[in-house]
């Protein structure tokens, strides 16, 4: 309820409470005054009547009474006037119909006993009247007239009660006057009240206007509009209040505006912190978090920066090194920031996230000063997962290229070398320092014509990959064959920025291919030999048998001696060939046992000594003592030595030195037993060196060799997981055979030869 209504109700109730009884009192007073006036007037008139008629109040005195009464009625305007005797019998009445009636009502009875005039209101024929009754006393002494007039104060003993005169004065006029008065008063009250209400509201409004202003202004201040003021119109309390308010608002504006600015600046700082991509947090001297921005919470896997506040940051996120070792707080650079007042930048560590995962981080830590004293540290950090990943990727790529078995060369578009890897250095003999800045032309062997290089460049400059086998020259001058490709590196704008050559030295592979080819040839020959030998063996046996049988029966000078002996000789040749072929085909089937190579050499020598002696060839034996045994077939190994020795002696013809040497050779974890057979013959021409192990290849005159000797040697050595090598120059040819020594737990090659 509005204040003005409250005041209104208060005033209204007060007015009713005060005005109501007042009105009633006024009305009663007016009523009494008017009735009193009527009553006095009646008493006066009635007393005059009584004075005039008192003497006539004896017996039937109507005749004298009535005119008096009627006259009095006319003079006073009474409704009736009557006279009664002492018993209540009407002596005379202005209404003649009433004459002779005896009144016995309560009022009459009271009147009969009344000694003095009196009046009381009554009803007469429905109208309100004032009945005034005056007793009539008859004085026995003549001097009593004066007393009568005074109302008869004399002792009853001196007078006689004769009755009373009653007059009924109408009260209608009185009542009407009274009513009119009241109506006027009420009208005045209503008019005054209406005006009062209007005035009240008018004044209330005027009175409350400053309050409203104050209220509005206060609301504005409450909203933060410091400095809001209200007009000061009056000099009353409200005026003072408004003045005070204005001063207060002014003061608020002056003092609290700076707080608002502070808040705004704080908000701005918070906004900047929260929009930063770096995680930023502060630590106090205890190492506890004093603030943290959104990025800090997000990077560390927390929902809200508030979760971090008050936590010990070292224990929370820096407790362990990336490798799992605990991180002592005294080693922590962040803690040292405020302990030793030293700013830090670290990018090799990890922070530990809420979910227990590690976050590769780069962080900066700065001491915070307040009044010249360090109060803590501010740490900003970045998630460098991607950077570290790309660094790792880069390192991985670099290591992969650097350690690649293939040689890698990277040049700029002009062909200038910018990078070579380790394989390149090993393959070419040029060190990185020597190669960088050069062009790949330093490797040019001269084996390719200009057209070859033109083709290469036209392919490369058109952005395609050049793939080929190329012969290059090492630093030491030797040639080597490389297979691989050169690819242009093309940048986003389609320009060639580099060329990358990835090449493989295929010298070794070529050798392997050669060995494989040889092996294939051997295998084919072996199968053929087995079949052929088997089929030829029997017929040849018959031929040789008959030939020998016949030759033995020849007499001296027999003309058939030459043809028969020729048959025998050629048949023996065939037989040897067949035997070789059979040996060949069975080389892989031979049984293996530990073989003392020195003994094999001795055995083989005993078989070739006869021929050596005949050809005047000096045989030297240089056997290493206590050689380990090799697993193999004694006969086959002897066969090899015999074959090689025979070849050597055949090569030397008459005169020469044959050296048989054995030795133990260590190659890393492997050890080999070697046999070297060296002669002083003319050597093997380089052109045929690659073919000497081919089956049926021979340089011996027809009939002297089967062309299978060296093939057989090769085959047997292969089957023994061994190796054979030839070094030859005029005057010195050396065959080197080596067999793997098998020791406990060491198997140089897969055990393929053992049945």
């Amino acid at each position, binding site marked *: 309820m509005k204040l003005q209504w409250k005041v209104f109700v208060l005033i209204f109730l007060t007015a009713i409470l005060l005005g109501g009884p007042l009105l009633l009192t006024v009305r009663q007073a007016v009523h009494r005054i008017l009735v009193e006036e009527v009553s006095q007037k009646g008493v006066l008139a009635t007393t005059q009547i009584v004075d005039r008629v008192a003497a006539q109040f004896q017996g039937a005195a109507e005749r004298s009474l009535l005119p008096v009464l009627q006259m009095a009625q006319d003079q006073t305007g009474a409704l009736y006037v009557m006279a009664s005797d002492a018993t209540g019998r009407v002596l005379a009445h202005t209404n003649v119909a009433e004459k002779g009636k005896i009144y016995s009502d309560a009022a009459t009875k009271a009147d009969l006993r009344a000694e003095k005039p009196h009046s009381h209101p009554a009803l007469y024929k429905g109208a309100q009247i004032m009945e005034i009754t005056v007793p009539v006393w008859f004085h026995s002494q003549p001097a009593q007239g004066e007393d009568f007039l005074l109302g008869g104060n004399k002792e009853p003993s001196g007078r006689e009660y004769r009755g009373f005169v009653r007059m009924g004065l109408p009260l209608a006029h009185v009542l009407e006057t009274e009513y009119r008065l009241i109506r006027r008063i009420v009208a005045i009250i209503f008019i005054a009240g209406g005006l009062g209400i209007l005035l009240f509201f008018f004044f209330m409004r005027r009175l409350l206007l400053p309050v409203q202003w104050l209220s509005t202004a206060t609301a504005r201040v409450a909203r933060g509009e410091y400095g809001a003021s209200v007009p000061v119109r009056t000099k009353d309390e409200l005026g003072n209040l408004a003045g005070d308010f204005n001063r207060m608002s002014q003061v608020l504006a002056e003092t609290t505006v700076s707080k608002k600015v502070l808040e705004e600046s704080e908000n701005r700082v918070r906004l900047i912190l929260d929009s930063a991509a770096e995680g930023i947090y502060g630590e106090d001297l205890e190492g506890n978090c004093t603030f943290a921005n959104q990025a800090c919470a997000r990077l560390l896997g927390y929902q809200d920066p508030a979760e971090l506040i008050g936590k010990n940051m070292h224990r929370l996120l820096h407790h362990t090194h990336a490798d799992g070792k605990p991180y002592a707080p005294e080693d922590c650079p962040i803690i040292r920031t405020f302990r030793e007042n030293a700013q830090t930048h670290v990018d090799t560590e990890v922070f530990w996230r809420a979910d227990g995962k590690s976050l590769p981080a780069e962080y900066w830590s700065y001491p915070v000063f307040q009044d010249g004293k360090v109060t803590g540290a501010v740490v900003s950090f970045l998630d460098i997962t991607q950077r570290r990943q790309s660094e790792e990727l880069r390192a991985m790529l670099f290591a992969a290229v650097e350690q690649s078995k293939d040689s890698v060369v990277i040049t700029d578009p002009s062909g200038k070398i910018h990078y070579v890897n380790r394989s390149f250095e090993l393959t070419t003999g040029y060190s990185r320092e020597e190669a960088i800045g050069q062009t790949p032309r330093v490797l040019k062997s001269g084996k390719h014509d200009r057209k070859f290089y033109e083709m290469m460049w036209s392919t490369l400059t058109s952005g395609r990959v050049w793939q080929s086998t190329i012969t290059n020259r090492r630093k030491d001058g030797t040639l080597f064959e490389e297979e691989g490709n050169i690819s242009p590196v093309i940048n986003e704008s389609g320009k060639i920025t580099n060329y990358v050559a990835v090449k493989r030295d295929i010298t070794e592979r070529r050798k392997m291919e050669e060995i494989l080819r040889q092996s294939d040839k051997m295998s084919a020959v072996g199968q053929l030999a087995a079949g052929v030998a088997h089929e030829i*063996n*029997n017929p*040849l*046996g*018959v031929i040789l*048998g*008959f030939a020998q*049988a016949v030759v033995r029966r020849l007499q001296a000078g027999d003309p058939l001696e030459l043809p028969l002996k020729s048959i025998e000789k050629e048949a023996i040749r065939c037989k040897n060939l067949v035997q070789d072929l*059979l040996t060949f085909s069975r080389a892989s089937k031979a049984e293996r046992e530990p073989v003392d190579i020195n003994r094999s050499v001795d055995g083989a020598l005993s078989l070739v000594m006869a021929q050596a002696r005949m050809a005047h060839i000096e045989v030297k034996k240089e056997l290493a003592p206590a050689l380990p045994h090799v697993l193999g077939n004694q006969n086959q190994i002897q066969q090899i030595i015999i074959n090689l020795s025979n070849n050597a002696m055949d090569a030397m013809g008459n005169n020469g030195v044959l050296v048989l040497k054995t030795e133990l050779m260590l190659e890393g974890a492997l050890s080999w037993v070697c046999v070297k057979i060296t002669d002083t013959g003319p050597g093997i021409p380089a052109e045929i060196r690659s073919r000497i192990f081919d089956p049926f290849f021979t340089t011996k005159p027809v009939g002297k060799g089967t062309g299978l000797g060296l093939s057989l040697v090769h085959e047997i050595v292969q089957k023994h997981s061994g190796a054979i090598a030839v070094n030859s120059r005029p005057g010195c040819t050396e065959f080197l055979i080596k067999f793997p020594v098998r020791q406990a737990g060491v198997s140089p090659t897969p055990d393929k030869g053992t049945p």
Partner: protein
Amino acid sequence: MMSDQTLKVLVVDDEPGFRNLLKWELESLGVQVDTAENGTEGVRKATETAFDVIITDITMPEMDGLELLEKIKKITPETEVIVATGFGAVETAVHAMKNGAYDFILKPYDLEYLKRKVFQAVDRLARCRECGRPAHE
């Protein structure tokens, strides 16, 4: 080593060339040589005639040398059997020796070696006959 009794030798070989060679060579020494081209024929002939020595090839159609050896040893235990094996067939030779062969020779035949073996066999046969003991123990 030559007795008044003519030596009887059976050559069993599927190769006619070898049969002819051995027959020709041994007959030139005065030995009575009969031939058979397989084990079956060899067994038949051995039941008809008691041979002193049988030279048999191992690898033959119908009945091979080892089976022949087994049968001969049942029919005429005193007949000496020399088996001829191909190059490198040592296992077979060992098997034959265990089954009562007198010796083994390698093919193609070395005639001189063969002749020596034949006469060695005959010698032993003669010695055993003199002392009344079986040809081999």
